[in-house]
């Protein structure tokens, strides 16, 4: 029954999309400022049915209604309640339904909140957004329908991967999709802007908040994914330049560039066509990312179960999107006048875009190159963390310098006084770096530069905070916090990389390993039976010989029965000053266990700084209109 309800709702949404496109096209010809009331009503119905369809699927998961194939394949009666619900979007078909939900909801919200803008522009936006909705609905109905039914009804589900039963991972997709999919609305708005010749400052204001919202959620989604990987995946890392991670990073670079360029478009009414290109590219990158991840074309720890037929559909959709965007852009493109003063804020924002484009192109090339090489020459190579680190990290150095001094410059022209302050702070950064070397040890040239420029950015931000406290100009606060967060993030990642202790060794029960000033005593192995798994728990006594402190770490090996999987749970002790990290795995046909021990200084500060970046963005959203 749920299957019928679900499919009926989806067909209703499909019909409504057609109706909206049709009525909106007719309304285009009618002059005036007000959009026909019908279109609002149709959009509201569309939103209601879409949300209802999503609830239908959720109910299916909650009730363990295995008449739905999707529930059967991805759930289990013994799964905890919260994870049953999270299971709704933790699979390909369900997450597609979430995509449609966000597309539809954003379409309606845009319609409602854009009433100060020109009618033709708004109508075109709604039309294009609904074409996107149609595309996804057709894909859903023909290929990835979460409401397909199965008969006879199985009495138990196939269960969800135990690794995915985690609170961080449960909220990670919805957060990320508001970012990924949210950028659809300014893709549609960009197309609309071109067709209705609605540009400049007004256009910037119409999409401003959407860009900020998608940026905040995209940032948050990526951070939560990293936190999950660190605590759950058992290798002590939080970023592996894995294809799925990269797929979420590509739109992030574009949205960040767009967010900064919008400031220029709004204040100086220039860079319009570049902003359009960014708006179009962001959602195109999201769809490319989805294509790479869901089609099985890439090899990754994270991939959904792959299926080439999905790939074909998404590829067709992607091609149509790119070609229509190109055709409309080229036919409407006119020559624009630019005037950029070298020492002005807009040039620095251009520089930000330049770096964002570089980072984006690097990650994109790193992801795509193995595919291209394989298709064209049949050779398989791997492009992994070393490539991305070697190319990107050195460029972060000048990037942070620009981040620090850019905001200091005013629009159009600036003063010489700024330079003296900059030199003073640079000197301060170098002194602090020397202090770190003196206290903790030398490191490479690149690390020196990273530390110096990160501290430089941090010092600038602290000075800005001091200025903010005295002058109270709220408009600067979001930027200060986000930039400070970025500086701190790079600083703490640098500290972690330089001063982490990491050892990989084999140990038998009863043996002791000494590493630097730590003594690790593998005391015993215990077993524990839990509701849906059996655990082998190692008891490790960790002694800090310098401070004479003793701690116990208990990593686990978990054997799940339904489905049969093996997971490794790391023992992590998080403190303000450092994290202690221990994983244990058994070496087959041997009494030995492979142990990975890590001491990671200031690990939690990496998360705090990253969250600061997002917080800055959220603060900006809450600023009132005249304060921005």
């Amino acid at each position, binding site marked *: 029954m749920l299957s019928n309800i679900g499919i009926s709702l989806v067909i209703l949404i499909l019909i409504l999309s057609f109706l909206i496109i049709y009525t909106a096209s007719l309304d285009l010809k009618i002059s005036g400022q007000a959009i026909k009331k019908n279109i609002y009503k149709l959009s509201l119905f569309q939103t209601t049915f879409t949300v209802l369809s999503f609830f239908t699927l959720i109910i299916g998961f909650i009730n363990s209604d295995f008449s739905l194939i999707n529930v059967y394949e991805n759930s289990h009666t013994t799964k905890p309640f919260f994870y049953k619900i999270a299971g709704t979007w933790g699979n390909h078909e369900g997450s597609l339904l979430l995509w449609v939900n966000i597309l539809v909801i954003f379409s309606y919200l845009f319609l409602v909140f854009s009433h100060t803008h020109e009618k033709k522009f708004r109508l075109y936006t709604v039309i294009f957004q609904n074409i996107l909705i149609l595309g996804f609905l057709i894909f859903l109905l023909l290929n990835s329908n979460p409401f397909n039914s199965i008969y006879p009804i199985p009495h138990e589900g196939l269960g969800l991967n135990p690794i995915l039963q985690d609170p961080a991972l449960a909220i990670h997709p919805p957060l990320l999709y508001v970012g990924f999919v949210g950028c659809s609305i300014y893709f549609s708005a960009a197309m609309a802007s071109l067709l209705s010749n609605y540009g400049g400052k007004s256009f910037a204001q119409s999409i401003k908040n959407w860009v900020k919202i998608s940026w905040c959620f995209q940032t948050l989604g990526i951070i939560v994914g990293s936190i999950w990987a660190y605590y759950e995946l*058992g*290798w002590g*890392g939080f970023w*592996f330049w*894995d*294809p799925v991670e990269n797929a979420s990073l590509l739109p992030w670079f574009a949205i960040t560039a767009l967010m900064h360029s919008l400031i220029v478009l709004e204040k100086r009414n220039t860079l319009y066509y570049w902003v359009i290109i960014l708006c179009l590219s962001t959602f195109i990158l999201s769809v490319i990312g989805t294509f790479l991840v869901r089609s099985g074309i890439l*090899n*990754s*720890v*994270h*991939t959904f179960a792959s299926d080439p037929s999905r790939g074909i559909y998404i590829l067709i959709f992607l091609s149509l999107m790119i070609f229509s965007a190109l055709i409309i852009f080229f036919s409407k493109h006119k020559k624009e006048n*630019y*005037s*950029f*003063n*070298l020492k002005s804020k807009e*040039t620095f924002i*251009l*520089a930000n875009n*330049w770096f964002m*484009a*570089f980072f984006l*192109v*690097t990650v994109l*090339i*790193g992801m795509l*190159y193995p595919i291209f*090489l394989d298709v064209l*020459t049949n*050779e*398989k*190579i*791997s*492009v*992994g*963390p*070393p*490539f991305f680190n*070697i*190319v990107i990290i050195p*460029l972060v150095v000048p990037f942070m310098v620009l981040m620090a001094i850019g905001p200091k410059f005013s629009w159009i022209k600036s003063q010489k006084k700024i330079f003296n302050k900059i030199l003073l702070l640079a000197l301060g950064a*170098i002194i602090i770096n*020397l202090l770190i*070397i003196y206290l903790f040890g*030398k*490191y*490479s*040239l690149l690390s*020196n*530069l990273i530390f110096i420029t990160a501290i430089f950015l941090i010092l600038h931000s602290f000075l800005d905070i001091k200025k903010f406290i005295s002058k109270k100009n709220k408009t600067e606060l979001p930027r200060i916090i986000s930039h400070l967060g970025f500086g701190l993030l790079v600083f703490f990642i640098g500290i972690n990389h330089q001063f982490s202790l*990491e*050892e*990989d060794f084999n140990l038998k029960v009863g043996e002791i390993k000494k590493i630097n000033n730590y003594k690790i005593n593998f005391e015993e192995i215990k077993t524990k039976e839990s509701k849906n798994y059996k655990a082998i728990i190692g008891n490790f006594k960790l002694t800090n010989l310098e401070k004479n402190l003793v701690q116990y770490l208990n990593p686990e090996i978990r054997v799940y029965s339904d489905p049969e999987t093996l997971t*490794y749970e790391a023992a992590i002790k998080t403190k303000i000053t450092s994290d202690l990290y221990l994983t244990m*795995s058994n*070496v*087959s046909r041997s009494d030995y266990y*492979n142990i990975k021990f890590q001491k990671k200084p200031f690990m939690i500060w990496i998360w705090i700084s990253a969250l600061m970046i997002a917080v800055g963005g959220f603060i900006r959203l809450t600023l009132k209109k005249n304060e921005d």
Partner: protein
Amino acid sequence: MKIKIFFFITYLLFITSGYSSENQTKLLEIYKNLRCLVCQGQSIADSNSDFAVTMKLVVQDQLKEGKTEAEIYRFLTSKYGEWIVYQPTFSKNNFLLWILPYTALIFGAIIIFILVRKTKHNKVN
């Protein structure tokens, strides 16, 4: 001004002259650069598979014998193909991979340069 830059560079070279990497970090670095062939996108550092365990032993032996990092990669690539190393080589096949990002960077720089110069030109006129 030039003297300040000269001192800055000498200072940087001085503070970095003592940089050395210990053997254990070298070992882990190599582990992180080698792909586990039987896993879905994991290095042998992160993998718990049988194959990873064996590979680690071989890398340890070779390091003890005094082989350099490059020699170890060359040895393993000859046995398993280039896929096993995460850092792509700078070969005939791969040089595009390394060159393209910097090409994009230079391309962007040229565009910004042109834009700023057009402004100066307009201002002069």
